[in-house]
């Protein structure tokens, strides 16, 4: 059951942050008038947050509702870190994507992207609110940093040492195919992270997740529908689309973090971040392989989604596929292992490997070709309905 509280009055700390937020919008080029009558409400679903700590070493104790109830400084620091990373991705994605609004293939896509950007900013507000309201000076400083880091860190503005915290949120989103891949693959990782935090021992964090997850489902749907509409239209060749799948799947898998992660284990011990299926699992967690398990759930979900995307392809077209979880990884145990997109060991020297990557991932030639396709009716038309 969802019973959402919308915060009506802000404390001065957060009010001051809101003013800085307006400056951030101006700095990155996001015109506030695009928001129309959209409001950045702070929403808590206290019912779904639960009253008792659900896992870890504090299991069974009341969930913490205030900073001073949190038993150790190390736990507080870990919670602040989780919230900061989550907030950082929300603002990072807007920085990466807003420039696409001018080149949207249809009004439906422009409005969908704008809605996503509004909601990502709201999620960023939510995280900043929790930092400012529950974590004193430390939280206020971390909330400010959410607006100081930049996905397109610009040396001219002295930002070269202040990129977004996660690599994917510093990558340029150059075109609408990247946008649909990002919302399908990277926002899906976001959904996993939000769900893992929805059972958190820190109740304001857990209560933030329900409303955010409701909104996130639209973001994922936009990505999946976008890819389905592209496949259905049949203008962009499957072989070219596959290269983008290869690029974004490996990025999405990396976002789950290192294997045998001790920080994931501590987060579980503290009850801050659970498993993706924490409430449904019914078996004890393998605390030493928490990231691996989440990554596996994510990977399985991608495979099912790809089956749905493939249903729309034209007769005679090859199937799109999810590349192996070993391919082109930058994080985890497969970092130094060279495999093909099908997961078979790669045979060849360094030069052959570089050539293979060039063949399997989008290169400059592919981007140029893609830009030509963008001049055609490359995506199935859909009308925005109010």
């Amino acid at each position, binding site marked *: *059951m*969802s*019973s*959402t509280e919308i915060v009506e009055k802000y404390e001065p700390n957060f009010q001051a942050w809101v003013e800085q937020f307006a400056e951030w919008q101006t700095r990155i080029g996001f015109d506030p008038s695009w928001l129309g009558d959209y409001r950045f409400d702070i929403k808590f*679903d206290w019912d*779904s947050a639960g009253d008792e700590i659900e896992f870890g070493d504090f299991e069974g104790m009341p969930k913490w509702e205030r900073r001073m109830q949190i038993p150790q400084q190390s736990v507080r620091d870990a919670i602040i870190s989780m919230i900061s990373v989550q907030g950082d991705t929300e603002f990072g994605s807007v920085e990466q994507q807003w420039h696409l609004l001018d080149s949207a293939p249809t009004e439906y896509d422009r409005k969908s992207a704008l809605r996503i950007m509004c909601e990502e900013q709201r999620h960023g507000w939510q995280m900043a609110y929790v930092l400012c309201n529950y974590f004193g000076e430390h939280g206020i400083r971390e909330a400010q940093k959410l607006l100081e880091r930049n996905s397109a860190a610009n040396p001219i503005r002295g930002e070269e040492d202040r990129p977004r915290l996660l690599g994917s949120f510093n990558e340029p989103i150059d075109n609408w195919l990247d946008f649909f891949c990002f919302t399908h693959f990277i926002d899906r990782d976001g959904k996993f992270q939000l769900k893992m935090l*929805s059972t958190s021992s820190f109740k304001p964090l857990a209560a933030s*997740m*329900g*409303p955010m*997850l*409701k909104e996130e*489902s639209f973001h*994922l*749907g936009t990505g*999946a*529908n976008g890819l*389905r509409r592209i496949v259905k239209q049949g203008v962009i060749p499957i072989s070219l689309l596959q290269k983008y799948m290869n690029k974004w799947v490996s990025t999405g898998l990396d976002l789950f973090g290192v294997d045998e992660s001790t920080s994931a284990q501590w987060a579980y011990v503290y009850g801050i971040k659970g498993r993706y299926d924490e409430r449904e699992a019914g078996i004890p967690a393998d605390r030493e392989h928490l990231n691996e398990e989440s990554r596996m759930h994510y990977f399985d979900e991608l495979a099912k*989604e790809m089956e749905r995307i493939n249903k729309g392809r034209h007769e005679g077209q090859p199937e799109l596929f999810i590349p192996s979880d070993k391919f082109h990884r930058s994080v985890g145990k497969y970092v130094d292992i060279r495999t093909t997109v099908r997961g078979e060991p790669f045979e060849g020297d360094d030069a052959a490997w570089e050539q293979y990557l060039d063949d399997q991932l989008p290169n400059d030639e592919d981007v140029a070709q893609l830009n030509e396709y963008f001049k055609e009716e490359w995506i*199935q*038309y*859909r*009308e925005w*309905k*109010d």
Partner: protein
Amino acid sequence: MNTSKKSGFNTESGRTEVVDMQAFALLNVNREKLRPFFERVPELFAAHHHHSSQNDAGYEELLYRVYRPYSENMLDMIDEWMGHEPRSWRKEVDREVMLMLYAIRYPDTLLLESLSSDAGSDMKRISGYLHFMHHTYTIWDEDTRKGLAKLGFEIPGSENVDAFVYGAYISSIELVKELAPFTCFLEHDVPRQRLFQAALAAYGREN
């Protein structure tokens, strides 16, 4: 549903009752009754939307094939998916319906009062047009009405277009959507109103 004009409708056909019922339903939600439904929304949605009687592929195709400027052919396509006989009314009635479809804005339903008796004689047909042209309006369906009743939202039955009954219907579904936890929100290529309407229909059919 526009309840702000409540005082203007108290003369006939039990409308006062309907308006009172809307307010009662919206203010007196029995959350415990909703819980078992919310726990099963994904499964219920699949049971209805993907049932062979629903032609799910045809539904999803229509989401893309109906857009402005609206045409009679689009009304035909919606009728066909809904399983209706071809319209037997005059061409002018098509135009009247189109004008209403262009002008109406969710969640208003009062504009339905402007329909003549020909167009106003079939709530299900009109709700289909509203749904595919606006998505936020829901298809009027007897099983869905029963599903709402199981959750405590008693919506009177009606074959004729009734702005207040339909207003209560869509508002109740909107409220169910608002109260639903995130686990109900599937990533599916259907509007959220369809997601809940389909789940409610499957729920309403169960004994």
